[in-house]
């Protein structure tokens, strides 16, 4: 079920009152069932997958808790990893692995071919797999006690607001909240609805509008000028941010209405002054997941400079492949890894800049612009339909940077102005977010400021959202 569908509003209108009317004991079970309904609404065939991952992880947690022997605990952990990662690998990477092996065989002039699986990718599998793994790791390392109630665990694993596109939650944050008693709170509901409204604005007015430009230009890069490709690359940078952070806001708002606080996933990422800072602000739940469950177990920065550099590259490579079963995602991850290491290397020197406030601000602004452009450059590989397209786009932009025409022959000036205005609103709110909390700023405003702001967002959505339900980009991961 899509957040931006009529069915979702009907679903929420039923789930919220029933949830608060039920005794606390039954709420996790109800949430789990509602979440399965949400998940299976459009793709009932994948319900078993979520249930299998949940059951294996739940039983694995119990088994690890029953024994103190390290070997046995480790064996159970490995089993849980194999099942969860195995399902992910089968559904997501089967064709990538098969295709790559076939290319290798072809290069060796061997006629044997590995048949393609051609299986549909279950929505949200990367997210709920990682959520299952974090539970298994945390129980194994005794960072989190085992959860004995299956309904609570199933609700944690399938919690509908964040099931298909995150944030990737940790058991330590969600499970205690699932167990706690929540009472209907008007202020929480208003706060949740406000966050959802902002999320819908980001998704429908910013991301969906920009997606039209991006799809047109990236659909046939050979037929478009370098300025069009450049504009579409900037557009995609804001599209993916609006789309993914919009989803997160809707998810967090939705959960907040139910009394559950999900973790923050974005914090004004395009105001980051370096790539390492960018990753502290972009998809925070994923970057912290990789930090805790991959980077640190690999040794982090404790095993020397070379090993640290390898660890960083491994994390970014895996992060790239987590996003999609295509080598262009691996390139995207590797680019970020290289940017990350170069930034750290450069930061070893002091730059002896003038101490004046103006110079400091100008330097900070320059770093923001440079970081944004590095991120936007990497997005080319993320968004392009094929690796060949990505290289063509880069080649055209670099070799003829000012090749006209611009976007106006393709799209109307009013449409472009609306999109630019929406991005400007996003940047303004991000500026507040960078400095503090836009929500707190809004709360301090009198009602005659707040309500017109809400009305303006509602009208912007109704007037400027393109027609039709568009999936969120991160559903494909």
């Amino acid at each position, binding site marked *: 079920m899509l957040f931006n569908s*009529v069915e979702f509003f009907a679903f929420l209108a039923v789930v919220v009152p029933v949830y608060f009317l039920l005794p606390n004991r039954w709420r996790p079970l109800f949430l789990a069932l509602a979440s399965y309904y949400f998940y299976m609404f459009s793709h009932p065939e994948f319900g078993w997958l979520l249930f299998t991952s949940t059951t294996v992880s739940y039983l694995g947690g119990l088994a690890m808790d029953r024994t103190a022997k390290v070997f046995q605990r480790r064996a159970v952990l490995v089993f849980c990893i194999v099942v969860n990662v195995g399902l992910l690998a089968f559904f997501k990477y089967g064709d990538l692995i098969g295709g790559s092996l076939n290319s290798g065989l072809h290069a060796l002039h061997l006629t044997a071919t590995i048949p393609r699986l051609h299986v549909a990718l279950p929505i949200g599998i990367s997210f709920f797999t990682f959520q299952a793994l974090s539970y298994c790791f945390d129980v194994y390392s005794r960072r989190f006690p085992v959860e004995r109630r299956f309904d609570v665990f199933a609700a944690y694993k399938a919690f509908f607001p964040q099931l298909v596109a995150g944030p990737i939650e940790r058991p330590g944050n969600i499970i205690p909240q699932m167990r706690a008693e929540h009472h209907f709170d*008007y202020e929480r509901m208003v706060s949740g609805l406000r966050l959802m409204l902002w999320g819908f604005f980001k998704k429908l007015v910013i991301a969906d509008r920009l997606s039209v430009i991006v799809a047109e230009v990236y659909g046939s890069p050979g037929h478009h000028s370098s300025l069009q490709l450049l504009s579409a690359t900037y557009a995609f940078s804001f599209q993916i941010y609006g789309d993914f952070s919009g989803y997160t806001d809707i998810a967090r708002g939705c959960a907040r209405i139910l009394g559950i606080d999900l973790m923050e996933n974005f914090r004004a990422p395009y105001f980051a002054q370096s790539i390492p800072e960018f990753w502290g602000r972009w998809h925070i739940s994923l970057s912290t997941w990789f930090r805790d469950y991959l980077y640190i177990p690999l040794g982090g920065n404790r095993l020397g400079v070379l090993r640290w550099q390898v660890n960083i590259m491994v994390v970014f490579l895996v992060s790239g492949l987590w996003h999609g079963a295509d080598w262009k995602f691996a390139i995207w991850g590797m680019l970020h890894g290289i940017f990350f290491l170069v930034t750290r290397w450069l930061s070893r020197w002091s730059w002896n800049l003038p101490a004046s406030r103006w110079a400091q601000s100008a330097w900070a602004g320059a770093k923001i612009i440079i970081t944004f452009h590095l991120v936007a450059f990497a997005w080319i590989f993320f968004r392009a339909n094929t690796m060949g397209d990505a290289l063509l786009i880069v080649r055209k932009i670099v070799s003829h940077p000012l090749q006209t025409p611009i976007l106006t022959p393709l799209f109307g000036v009013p449409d472009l102005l609306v999109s630019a205005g929406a991005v400007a609103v996003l940047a303004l709110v991000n500026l507040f977010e960078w400095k503090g909390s836009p929500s707190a700023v809004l709360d301090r405003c009198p009602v005659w400021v707040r*309500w017109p702001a*809400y*009305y303006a967002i*509602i009208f912007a959505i*109704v*007037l400027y*959202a393109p*027609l*039709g339900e568009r999936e969120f980009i991160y559903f494909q991961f």
Partner: protein
Amino acid sequence: MRPFWRAALFLTPLAIVFGTPELVLWLGGELTNPDTVVRRQATDRQLVLHGPAYTNSAPYVKKHGLLALQAPQVVALGNSRVLQFRREFFRPDVSFYNSGSAAVRLLHFRAFLESLPPEELPETLLIATDTGYFNTKFDQLDKDGLNVTWMLNQIAHNPTAPEVFLQSWWTVWKDIAAGKIKWARLFSFDGLRNRVGLTALCAGAGYRNDGSYQYGTRDLEITNPQHSDYHFAKTLGHIAAGEGRFPWGDTPSAPALKETDALLDFCAAHHVYVIGFLPPHAHAVWMAMQGLGERYAYIPKLERELRARFESRGFEFYDFSDFATLGAPDTEAVDGYHGNERVYLRLVITMLERGSHLNAYADLPELRVKLAAGNPAQFQDN
């Protein structure tokens, strides 16, 4: 203020701003799913007039109307200039459907037919070869790739209620301000029954069960000073300037003729008998075009080219460009571009008199009686 009242106060303006057009759209039948309309038009004995004001779901309805009827024997296909062929022109045992408005450009014909399962194709196809199709200034064939994609999207897309609301709520407010919404008609609830859509409900205009179009009575009199094309003044202006639907031209477009060949070959290959005709203009309009001499030189050439193409494949072709050839007075024009259903009744009668294949489906003496009855609104329901 207590939370409930605060929430109520916040929501009230939204309820008024969005709720009012939602109510108008719902009561007017604008939100009725086209599939429901198709089903009811195919099964109801009573007239179900479909006249949405804010969406163009006609191509979708026409395709699915055809599929619902399961391969009617005779189908009229084309733009608005075939829409006056009525079910009543044919014998009761003959199944007929008017797919006018589904193919408004030349390339749409073949694309529309190809979108149907082969077993759903009709026995006989009536097509109006509008002169505009063969004039590159009007039917921009270089953009026809886009046109066909647009048309295929139209026939595949079933507009949902939220889409209809989102694209029309502001226009509804403008129409309310302009006094176009008839509240008494709205609250008759006919929009939810047999006058689906605000044009059908408020103006009595829309697509009938057989797919043909019924104009509202107020549109019928060309002699009414309120008519937008009063005595063809607007049309004659377009002819003098070579604008709108009346562009000048020397020769018929070669790509358009090639596409006609492809269309006729497709029909021949699928055993669909095609009857083509140049659709009628009011005599005053036609004379104005003739008066410009060589400006419209492509039309007589087109007639020869098309006749040769149709007849070489064993099909029929007629030139009904002038009302006078049908014995129709100019008062039977809807406007400078369209004749009313009496003109099309005359057209069918003329075909039958000339020995058309349509004799297998129609009863000439009975049609003559219907024409002699003299009621210009005999096929209307208002």
